């Protein structure tokens, strides 16, 4: 380290050292600019080209025969909303109740469970898709010929993907609820379930909603697990036992197709998807702020 004298009188060496420090500062700033630049490059491109590709018919029309002009993303947008709903029905109860379980217990099992949700969070989504394919698509195919791929299978894959996020945020937020609140409720003679339901969960509501919204934002753009579960559908479908279209599948198929009108649809789809994610993320932040006010 530096000698005392160099602190009093800047020598040539120490000036160099300061210059070098400044230089590395510039390097670091440049790296940060590159990182943000990459994001801007993606967003600006999508904003300019995606927004100009947007029009009303994209929301009202379904796909047209290949190679013909026009067409819209209605089926994909509605399909994605349905898939997200099914995923919520499957993933939210398990995730939220799992989080409450973690709050209530501190056993070896619950510690293992915490580790397992970490494991689950790191499973590539395509592998979760295989799981849904194995437990839903194949058995359905074996039982009823003519059916296999379904909106339900896609929802299962996405629902499982939601669990870790929802569970961990729920647990974290519940931990922050003051213990006095809970003790007060129990002291008044309320049973535990009542305490959780009427005192702890309401106090943590904002945080739990944040977790849900973040999990939804994460799954809304998932594509890989849908390829062999929800599968895609050229027809308009809202039935859960039928293959269903999804916005990310549309983006994938249209972006890799040779047709210009489909490229425009892919760009419009990307903008719509990003808008959904942005709204969910911003809503998640507001939900958390609401939490703080209470």
């Amino acid at each position, binding site marked *: 380290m530096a*000698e005392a004298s*160099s602190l009093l009188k800047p020598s040539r060496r120490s000036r160099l050292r300061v210059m*070098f*420090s400044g230089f*590395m*500062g510039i390097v*670091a*700033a*440049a*790296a*940060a600019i590159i*990182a*943000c630049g*990459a*994001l801007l490059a*993606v*967003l600006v*491109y999508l904003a300019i080209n995606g927004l100009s590709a947007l029009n009303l018919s994209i929301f009202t029309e379904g796909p047209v025969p290949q190679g013909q002009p026009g067409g819209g993303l209605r089926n994909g947008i509605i399909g994605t909303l349905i898939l997200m709903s099914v995923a919520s029905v499957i993933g939210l109860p*398990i995730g939220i*109740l799992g989080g*409450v*379980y973690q709050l*209530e217990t*501190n056993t070896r099992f*619950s510690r293992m469970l915490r580790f*397992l*949700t970490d*494991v689950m969070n*790191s*499973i*590539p989504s*395509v*592998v*979760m898709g*295989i*799981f849904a394919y*194995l*437990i839903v698509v194949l058995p359905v195919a074996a039982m009823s010929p003519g059916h296999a791929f379904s909106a339900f299978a896609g929802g299962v894959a996405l629902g499982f993907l939601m669990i870790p996020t929802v569970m961990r945020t729920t647990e*974290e*937020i519940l*931990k*922050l609820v*003051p*213990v*006095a609140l809970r003790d007060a409720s129990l002291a008044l003679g309320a049973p*535990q*379930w009542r305490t959780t339901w009427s005192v702890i969960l309401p106090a943590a509501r904002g945080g739990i909603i944040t977790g849900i919204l973040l999990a939804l*934002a994460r799954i809304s753009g998932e*594509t*890989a697990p849908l*390829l*062999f579960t929800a*599968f895609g559908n050229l027809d308009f479908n809202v039935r859960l036992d039928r293959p269903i279209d999804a916005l*990310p599948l549309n983006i*994938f198929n249209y*972006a890799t197709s040779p047709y210009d009108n489909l*490229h425009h649809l892919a*760009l419009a789809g990307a903008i719509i998807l*990003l808008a959904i*994610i942005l709204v969910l993320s911003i809503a998640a932040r507001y939900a958390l702020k609401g939490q703080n006010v209470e």
Partner: protein
Amino acid sequence: MNSQSIAIDSPIVERARSWTRGKHAGDRIYRAVLTLAAVSILLIIIGLIYELTAGSSASISAFGIRFFTDSEWNPSANHFGALPFILGTLYSSLWALVLALPISIFTAIFLSEMAPRWLERPMSFMIELLAAIPSVVYGLWGLFILQPWLVKNVETPISKSPLASLPIFGDLANGYDMLAASMILAIMILPYITAVSRDILHAIPKSVREASYALGATKWETIKGVVLPYARAGIIGGVMLGFGRALGETMAVTMMIGNAPIFKLDLFKSGYTLASVIANELAEASGLYRSALIEIGLCLFIITLIVNAGAKLLIYYTAKDINATT
């Protein structure tokens, strides 16, 4: 998460105490429901491992260990070897790491050590946004923008220069190749590595830095000599986390890599990854073919599991060390 305004009171620390105490009938149901949720998470994980293993048993018994060393993937002849996919996955992810690492570490240093607060917040927010963009949207951008740019400004000049004789470059600019896949992966894992590194750096107590300044060290000397060594294990953890992400990324890679089941060191050659081959072929497979693809899924699962577990441990112990010294 901003916790100061919530936890005025002491948070629930000792939680186990009342779990079994409630005698109310409703409480029994309550406990049963919670346990059911907890057990179902366990069942999902066990089920996943069981199904993947059972699904790949036909392939495992047909090819055994050869599955991982054989480089021929021939569904028509029912002959399956996963080597090109394994190598392709590791190779593209490694290059992604090489490309993303310097930028993300320096960005993290900039955000935590140098940037003024008014700049740090929006920049952090932007980098977090990078993580929220879906893979398929990156793929679309990669196809329409990054790939033509790479071909024109990187691959063509290199392929016409003496550099082309290096084993990692070729004399043919392609675009649907390892380089394109690694680049898009690098952009995708950048926010993860940056966020983890920044959080670790933030966690290092101010006093450590002040001690270094007091000894006359410059800002950079403090970062390099004191802060980074402190954070090293945690940053390595973050890097591994990013690596784990890259290994499992599917859509963007599938759209960029060229989907050719041949592994070459040449970055301008098309390749294939474990995740991509599943995405491209599972919906259409049956019999032994399907089993082989599921074994590829199992393989991907195990690799990401090991990498992520390692990362989590490193981050956990670093955080613990830092807490212990403060």
